[in-house]
Structures are given as structure tokens and as C-alpha cells.
């Protein structure tokens, strides 16, 4: 670096109003922002490509409203798991037990609701508590006793799978109470006049759009209040338009069929909630810090053991939720439920930008990764590719996504 102390730092651009940017520098700014988040934009781009590819290949069947609804329902439980898994991986760990835990909680739920007639809302809370306890037990072993997470959760994977079979006595138990089935399978209720569209979904979409726009505007205003540089107005407007268009497209697709699935609503709340926690809450920062550099985090006063413990507790709770959604969707708890779910969730996280060594990744990334896998599954089913080749292709996509990441990092030289 320069030893010239008198060298002046470049004068900062006037804060606030940056509307005078020419088209050229606007593009430059956009590219600059994209380069900083190369991984996520890269995956979003890949997702777009995959969607277009299969939309053309299936003569538009992929984007039929009914199919989009299906896509959401089919992948909801993997996406719920992927959120939790992303946190685990950011913290520098892995959880192999979630597939088995999913099955186990589904089995416990079935025994409670079907065999013992416990009302489903009570059973739901009990199941979440059991999941949280299972996660906490594993988290305790990992965080406080220092047993590697790979080993603890591998043991958990075997244990919970075995317990599931013991619990179900090898049988499949069902059907579930109607209330719970509805949560997993049905759509928001219809209200108001017949408009050919699902009114409540339209309203909900509209509400989301208003919320997003207000939030973005408020954010921009706050940045200006703190005298921070903000992106030029044109770029900001472009971003808003893109966001609104994306929400609007999904809303219209869903509204022209039966409306938004209830699961989508749950998923939306989880994504926003966990996204906010990881970005803005102190504990979120601490998760990134212990995954990024554990000794440095410890010396900065981060309570690393407690944070690790909570991350696994949370994973257990989300696994329980996924287990109930899965069981309710198929209306039965089976000993073979949730097979390989952990691997799907892990793959979704890595496709979505997580790093093997921890400290990197976002909740939104996990969702993008999960949707990439979901669209691949769904698209390949529609065009009639057998499950054998599907696995090969998904494997290669995972390899390509992470390979691109490694290559990109080496090029940047960080």
C-alpha cells in the first residue's frame, strides 16, 4: 500500500441525491452491485434460465397456474428445512439428522393425533417442542461438549430413523385431522365477488407490493438521514420496478388458479423473519462471525457456544414443522418419510451460496437453491425424464454451482 500519508482520499460523492448519473455509469453501478453479490445474482440468473428452458420444453406447461401451485406445495418442506440448514452451515456446521427427525416428528404427531385423538393445534405445539428438544440435545453435544456436528447428527440420523420405525411399529398411520390437512394442502379462502381471480390472493399480493415499496422508500430515506451515499434514483427506480414485477407475476399466476397455498404464507413468514434475523439481529451477526472465524469471534466476546446451541435448537424446530407439513400433505406418517431430505436441504444451501467452511450464505439464497432443485425436479418430471437421470442432472447442477463459486473466488483472488 502507499506510504504517502499526504495523499488525499477521493472526495466522497455528495450524499443523498444522485439522480444525475448517466446511462453509462448506471450500468456500471448495476454491474458493480452485481459483482459484489455475484453468487446470488448468478444463481438467480441460472434459475431464470432453468425456468425459461423448461417453460419452452414443456410448451408452457411449467408455468401453468396449477403447476406453479403444485411446485410450491411439493417443495415447501424442503424449503423449510433449507432455511434452518443454511443457518447451520453459516455457523460452520452440518446437520445430517433432519430427514430422520422429520419422519420422527411426523410419526409422533400421527400417534398423538390419530391414536390418542389429541386436538391438532395442541399436537402441533407438542411436536414443535419435541423437535426443538431433539435439536437442543444435538446442539448441546456439539456446542458444549465439542463433539463434531457431522458425528452427532450422523448418530441422530440413525437414531431418529430407528425411533420412527419403533414408534410406528413398521406401519403407516393416518389419516390426519382435517384441520392439519388443510394447512398443508389447501389455499387461502375465497372472499368477495367472482372476478375470475382469487380475490384474497390478489389483495395479499397488493399488500406485499405496498409493503415492499414503502420499506424500500423508508430505507432510502433513513440512509439519507444518516448522510450515507445512496444509489442513484434511476437505479433505485429500476430495482423497485423489478421487485414489483416479480411479486405481481407470482401473484397473478397463483390468483388465476385456486389462490395462494397456506403453506406459501407460512414459508413467506419464515423467509422474511429469518432473513431479517440473519441480516439485522445481533444473534444473526454472531452466527456469521463464528462461522467466518471462530477464534476471532470468541476474542470479540461472542458467546459462541450459546449461539451454536440455539442454531441447532432452531434446526430441530424447523425439522418438526417440515415433518408435520409433509405428513399432513400425504395424510400419513410412514417409516420411510423424509428419506434424503437432509441431502436436499444441504444441496439447496450450497447451490444457494453457502460455503463449506462457513460464514457465508443468506436465507434467500437457500430458498433460491431450493427452488432451483424444485423446478428441475418438476420440469424433468413434466418432460418425462426418469428419476435415474434426474439424480445425475441434479448432481451435476450442484457441482457446477459450487465449481463456479470456487472459480469465481480464485479469479477475484480473495
Amino acid at each position, binding site marked *: 500500500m502507499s506510504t504517502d500519508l499526504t495523499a488525499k482520499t477521493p472526495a466522497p460523492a455528495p450524499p443523498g441525491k444522485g439522480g444525475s448519473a448517466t446511462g453509462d455509469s448506471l450500468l456500471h453501478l448495476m454491474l458493480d452491485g452485481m459483482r459484489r453479490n455475484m453468487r446470488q445474482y448468478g444463481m438467480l440468473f441460472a434459475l431464470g434460465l432453468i425456468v425459461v428452458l423448461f417453460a419452452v420444453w414443456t410448451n408452457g406447461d411449467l408455468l401453468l397456474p396449477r403447476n406453479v401451485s403444485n411446485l410450491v406445495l411439493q417443495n415447501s418442506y424442503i424449503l423449510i428445512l433449507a432455511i434452518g440448514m443454511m443457518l447451520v452451515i453459516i455457523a460452520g456446521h452440518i446437520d445430517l439428522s433432519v430427514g430422520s427427525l422429520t419422519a420422527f416428528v411426523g410419526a409422533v404427531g400421527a400417534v398423538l393425533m390419530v391414536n390418542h385423538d389429541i386436538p391438532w393445534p395442541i399436537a402441533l405445539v407438542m411436536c414443535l417442542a419435541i423437535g426443538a428438544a431433539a435439536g437442543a440435545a444435538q446442539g448441546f453435544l456439539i456446542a458444549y461438549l465439542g463433539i463434531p456436528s457431522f458425528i452427532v447428527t450422523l448418530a441422530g440420523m440413525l437414531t431418529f430413523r430407528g425411533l420412527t420405525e419403533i414408534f410406528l411399529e413398521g406401519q403407516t398411520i393416518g389419516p390426519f385431522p382435517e384441520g392439519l390437512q388443510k394447512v398443508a394442502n389447501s389455499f387461502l379462502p375465497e372472499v368477495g365477488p367472482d372476478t375470475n381471480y382469487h380475490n384474497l390472493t390478489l389483495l395479499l399480493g397488493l399488500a406485499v407490493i405496498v409493503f415492499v415499496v414503502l420499506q424500500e422508500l423508508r430505507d432510502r430515506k433513513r440512509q439519507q438521514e444518516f448522510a450515507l451515499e445512496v444509489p442513484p434514483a434511476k437505479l433505485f427506480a429500476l430495482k423497485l420496478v423489478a421487485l414489483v414485477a416479480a411479486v405481481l407475476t407470482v401473484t397473478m399466476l397463483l390468483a388465476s388458479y385456486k389462490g395462494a397455498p397456506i403453506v406459501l404464507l407460512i414459508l413467506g413468514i419464515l423467509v422474511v423473519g429469518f432473513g431479517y434475523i440473519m441480516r439485522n439481529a445481533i444473534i444473526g451477526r454472531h452466527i456469521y462471525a463464528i462461522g467466518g472465524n471462530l477464534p476471532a469471534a470468541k476474542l470479540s466476546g461472542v458467546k459462541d457456544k450459546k449461539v451454536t446451541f440455539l442454531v441447532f435448537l432452531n434446526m430441530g424446530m424447523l425439522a418438526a414443522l417440515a415433518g408435520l407439513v409433509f405428513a399432513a400433505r400425504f395424510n400419513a406418517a410412514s417409516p420411510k418419510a423424509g428419506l434424503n431430505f437432509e441431502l436436499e436441504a444441504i444441496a439447496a444451501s450450497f447451490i444457494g451460496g453457502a460455503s463449506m467452511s462457513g*460464514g457465508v450464505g443468506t436465507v434467500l439464497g437457500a430458498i433460491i437453491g431450493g427452488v432451483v432443485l424444485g423446478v428441475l425436479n418438476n420440469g424433468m418430471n413434466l418432460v418425462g425424464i426418469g428419476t435415474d437421470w434426474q439424480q445425475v442432472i441434479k448432481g451435476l447442477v450442484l457441482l457446477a454451482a459450487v465449481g463456479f463459486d470456487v472459480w469465481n473466488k480464485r479469479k477475484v483472488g480473495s
Partner: protein
Amino acid sequence: MAGPVLEMRSIVKTFPGVKALSDVTLTVQQGEVHAICGENGAGKSTLMKVLSGVHPHGTYEGEILFEGDVCEFKDIRASEHHGIVIIHQELALVPYLSLAENIFLGNEHAARGFINWNDTLKHASELLRRVGLSDHPETRVADIGVGKQQLVEIAKALSKKVKLLILDEPTAALNDEDSGKLLDLILELKKQGITAIIISHKLNEIRKVADSVTILRDGRTIETLDVKAAETTEDRIISGMVGRDLENRFPERSPHEPEEDQAPALEVRNWTVHHPIDQQRKVVDDVSLQVRRGEIVGIAGLMGAGRTELAMSVFGRSYGRYAGGTVLKDGTEIRTKSVPEAVKHGIAYVTEDRKHYGLNLIDTIGRNISLSALGKVAKRGVVDEHEERQVAEGFRKSMNIKAPTVFEPVGKLSGGNQQKVVLSKWIFAGPDVLILDEPTRGIDVGAKYEIYTVIDQLAAQGKAVVFISSELPELLGMCDRIYTMAAGRLTGEFSRAEASQESLMRQMTKDKEVTR
């Protein structure tokens, strides 16, 4: 003695941006023990890496003659083939393999790829006996102490038909008894005709084993002295090690006048810490010191003196096993059993190893700065990103961190700028006491001056600063008071007026008499 066995002539070695060796000449006589000494960073280890082929021929300038032949080693195997074996400070043994397996690692007694165990064990036993070890050759390395491990390294060297044995600070990690044994062995091997080069800080050791000593300073050979000669006193060696020109490299500092009636901001009493694994070894031994507000107090010591261990163990017991002592803040005893407690009491520790212990290199400047005090930019557990960014921008400007934005990952910054980020992080935490461990290591002169200025300002604001450094001019230029440490103990305390490089170095190299 029959003439020189090794001659290194005009060796120059440059790393990107740094000239590690600028003109070193070294002549070692056949059958002698030759000591090399010099301050940290004088180029001792680099010179030995050039000799042993770690830095291969072609990456340095100059000429190496061994037994009269010009040598151009391309790797370690090549130098070992000639009988030159180096034993590094960090031992290169595989803990879960046996002594015999380690001794012949890479050099196995084997036929067609299969190891001949009878042969291996027999030879291993002989070699172990030669270095004075009676352990069974099938014992695992992990099950013997560091002192014995050092001897196993020598046995390994002997198995390679060593003619010139190089030991890089062999006793730095050993207790007195093990050190004594090792030095005796070196003398024993000398009788068997093995020439040795020993790098050491400890002058009493040099006096015990060495025949001659070469002093390096700032990558140059200063002189070679005959240890047995009457005029070779410890003072003579010390003045050779430190005698450099003092430039005006520090901000003007008005010496601090301590207010005697006020309790010290930080006081450590009878602090003792054991090594985390070798629990017989006291890494910090009964240390008591105090720092007042507005004062910069230096801790001088050579590598292995226990400075970092002292600082880290005081800072939330982040190192070793606590074995006694108390910490007082403003006159009242405080609990500092964990880092959060230490931080809460207003203590900050800026590590010497910023890459491993100071920064999350993959995260941004802004998030690194806020990490240890997120509560200050958060309400009810939620971080206000805008406020956080504003704080980071403030530090970027005031500390002159050279980066386009605070969103830049810290890993991309230069060493000096990374150090400014670590300092910013702890200044933001708002401590009363700052422990700075080698705050200018590995950064260039310009950035050093900036960091000195910041330290000076912190003291002027009434903070108590502990300044740990291996560079004596830096301590002399910045500190109001300086403690010296050697082998885990405090060996001296100097006011600004009393301290000189010579007086400090004398206390830094003071060690208990080596047991004979």
C-alpha cells in the same frame, strides 16, 4: 578443527516488498557449535531456510559452499542428501505415529514398498539410545513430552547421516531440565564430529554450548565472535544485536505524569498461567503489573517470553490454564473469566495475529468493526444497519482505512489497513484499557506512523494502553514505562528515562542459569 565446513557468501533474499536478507556472510568451522543470534526479524530463520533448501536455489542471490563444493539445493531432500538437517521451531513429527515410524518417515527401511519392521525397530532403538532416550521405539510421539520430542527430532536427523545439524530455537518450548539435557546432547554430538548451528536468544545457552557466534541485524551480518574469548561479553553481543540508528519515526509525545493518588486503571497481581497441554510448564509465572490512565506501558520480551500468553489469559482467560492471580480495575477486583466479562469491564485486546484471531476476513469492514460492540448500534437485539454503516464510514475516514467503501471484505485489504480495522473495532467498543499485541507487525513504515499516532491519541484521551512489542525502538519511542519479560517472568521495569535498547535487551535475555 580443520577449516570451514560451510561458507555462505553475500546471501541476498527478497520477499515481495521486503528485503529479508540484504548481505549475509556466514562461515562455520568443521566440528564447532556455531550460534546465530539477532532480534526477531533479523533474518535468522530466513538464512537457515536458504541453507536447507526451503528457499530453493535461484530464489536468492549469493553462494553456498559446503565441504568445499558449491551447493545449489532445489529442495530439502537435496540438502539432507548432503547431510544438512534442519530442526524447526515447530516440530515436524506426526503425533499418532510411533517414534520409530517418525524417525524413518520418508526414509523407511523397506523392500519393494513394504516396511521391514525388525530392521526399523532395531535401528530406531540404536538411534534413540544415541540421543539418550530409553523409550520403546513403538511409543507414540503424542505420549512423550516436548523435551523428548525434540530429542526424537535429533534422532531423526542422525538417521539421515547428519553432518551439519541446524537447530532453530530448540529450547524455546522446553523447561530448564529438558533444555539442559538438550544442550548436553549437542556437546556430546560435537565430540562425535557433528557440526551444529544453533539459533538462540538465550545468551547463557550460547555461552554454554557455542564456540563462536554470528550476530545478524536487519538482514546483515554484523560480526562473528569467538565465544571463549575474554572480550566476548553478553553486553558485547547485545550491543551488536540492537545497535541500529534511531530515526524520527514516532509522533511527538509528552511523557505522562502519573497521578499517584489515583488507582491504576488496570492492575494484575501474581498472575500465573500454565501451558494448556504441558501443565507442568508455567508460561506466565507470578507476574504483577499496573497501568494508569493516560499511560502507555510497554512489555518487551523475545519470542516465547510469555507476553501474548499473559495478555490473552488476562483477557477472559483466552489462553492456557489459569493457576492464580487477580485482576483489578480502578482499584477493585474484577472477574474476567470470559471474554464478554472482560469486555464489559472495559478491557480490549488487539491480537498480534489479526488474520486468525482478529478479523473475519470474508466479512466486510463495517461488520468487522461493529462485531465486538453490536449493542451500540442496535435496539432490542436488532442492528440498525444505517447507523452501523455510518459508524464504519466514520472510522474509515478518521483512521484513513484505504478502501473504496465499508462493504469491502477485510481479506482484500493490506496488512496496515487490516490492522486499522482491528483497532477501529476495539476503539468502537469504548474500552478504558487497551492491550495492543504487536500492533505494527508486518506493516509498512507509513502505516506504522499512523498507528502510533492513534495510540498516542488514545492515551491522550485518558485510556490506559499496554503496548506489547518485539521492536525495542518502537517501545522506546512510544512508552512512558516498559516492563521486560523473559521465560514467563517479569525481569525488569524501566521508566522512559532509564530505558535503553541495551538495558532492555539485558533483562530480556536474562534466564535462569541453565542446569548443568
